[in-house]
């Protein structure tokens, strides 16, 4: 597929990050709609054998049955993007069955003329919905957390979209996991200092070896903030 590069075996990487003090593992099945679901289920099942931190799984979850399968294989939370937009009641349904703590809404935001627009299908498809409006609509639906990604910054290692994160923080009390764009330790420190988010999700910069988890946590502590390290 265009734009995708294989960086390694997901289970090998999950183990490595668990051993190096990651606080949570997020598996995003970016090609979920194109391939069978069984592959992600196997990855989750295998990870839960020896990764004893929370596991969040996103990509292609369209029904409560999809979520149930993932929970039964060892996922702690499911992250929903496309299906949340087309069917917001799915958030409520999963929260009712499995608790709010198990439902994460994943938002893929892309800069447009007057702010940010919600994208779906791994940043490929616009929805015409403003991110601010989407945040308002999510209130009271039952989600326990947000993962906020930037389509513009994802995979670029050019730093996070601070303005986007601030805008969402101002409108939303849910815990926010900031994603997309981390390339350096400074990027992580900057986002925690300026955006009051609960967590940062990092893919590319860790997979490529540009930065290490221990160094990230150390940088956070050196700058006077709290990090679970050593753990």
């Amino acid at each position: 597929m265009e734009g995708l590069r294989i960086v390694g075996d997901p289970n090998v990487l999950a183990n490595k990050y668990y051993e190096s003090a990651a606080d949570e593992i997020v598996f995003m099945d970016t090609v979920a709609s194109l391939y069978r679901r069984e592959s992600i289920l196997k990855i989750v099942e295998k990870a839960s054998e020896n990764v004893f931190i929370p596991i969040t799984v996103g990509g292609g979850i369209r029904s409560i049955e999809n979520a149930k399968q993932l929970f039964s294989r060892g996922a702690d939370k499911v992250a929903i993007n496309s299906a949340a937009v087309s069917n917001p009641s799915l958030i409520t349904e999963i929260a009712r069955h499995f608790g709010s703590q198990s439902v994460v809404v994943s938002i893929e935001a892309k800069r447009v003329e007057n702010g940010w627009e919600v994208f779906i299908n791994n940043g490929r498809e616009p929805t015409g919905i403003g991110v601010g409006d989407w945040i308002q609509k999510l209130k009271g639906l039952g989600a326990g957390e947000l993962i906020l990604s930037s389509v513009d910054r994802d995979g670029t290692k050019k730093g996070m979209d601070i303005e986007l994160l601030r805008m969402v923080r101002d409108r939303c009390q849910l815990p926010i996991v900031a994603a997309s764009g981390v390339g350096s330790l400074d990027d992580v420190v900057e986002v925690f200092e300026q955006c009051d988010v609960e967590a940062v999700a990092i893919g590319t910069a860790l997979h490529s070896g540009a930065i290490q988890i221990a160094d990230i946590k150390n940088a956070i502590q050196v700058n006077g903030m709290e990090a679970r390290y050593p753990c």
Partner: protein
Amino acid sequence: MLIPSIVILDYGVGNLHSVWHACKQFSENVTVISDFSEYSPATHIVLPGVGAFNVAISEIRKRRFDELINSSIKEQTPILGVCIGMHVLAKIGFENGENSGLGIFDAEVRHLSEQAEIDEQRIPHIGWTKVETTNNESQANNDLEISGYFYFAHSFGYVDLPKPYILREAVVGKLRIPAVVKSGSVTGVQFHPEKSGANGLRFLRKFFETGRNNSEQKIS
């Protein structure tokens, strides 16, 4: 050398998978049972937990696990309740209506928002929180290997439990959430040891090393 035989109670809720794998770190002999009739004597019993109080307690009664738990307490078999598995050990729960629990702890299980003036939107309490030792000087407290960060994911918690039974608390804003409670051979934890990395595994190891009558043996 003690090899614990661990029984995990399946009452239709929760992340059995993760709990099972965590227990397997300490024993080859881990079984999951879904009814009292499947029980053969074990050294340790685990009540896992993700789910709602009303559903969990009704399934526990349906599967006669209440009888199993009560008879195991008489034999002083160590029992561990995790999150909802801890909640059902309380006298009463208020999740989805009022339901009586197993009454092992003289506590109520209430929504966190009822316990302090905090913004409701900050609930559920999800994430890594440091647990703090309470002013409890009991031996049971000193025996626990619990310090540092543990992983929490919950909206309800214990209230009104007499202090001597609370061994650790998690402080979240204005809330002081009982994180570890103990009465005799029964321990309840609000956090998820199976999701708390090395700290969680250390806690579980210690729990499985403690046998009946608090006798201790090392797991090789």
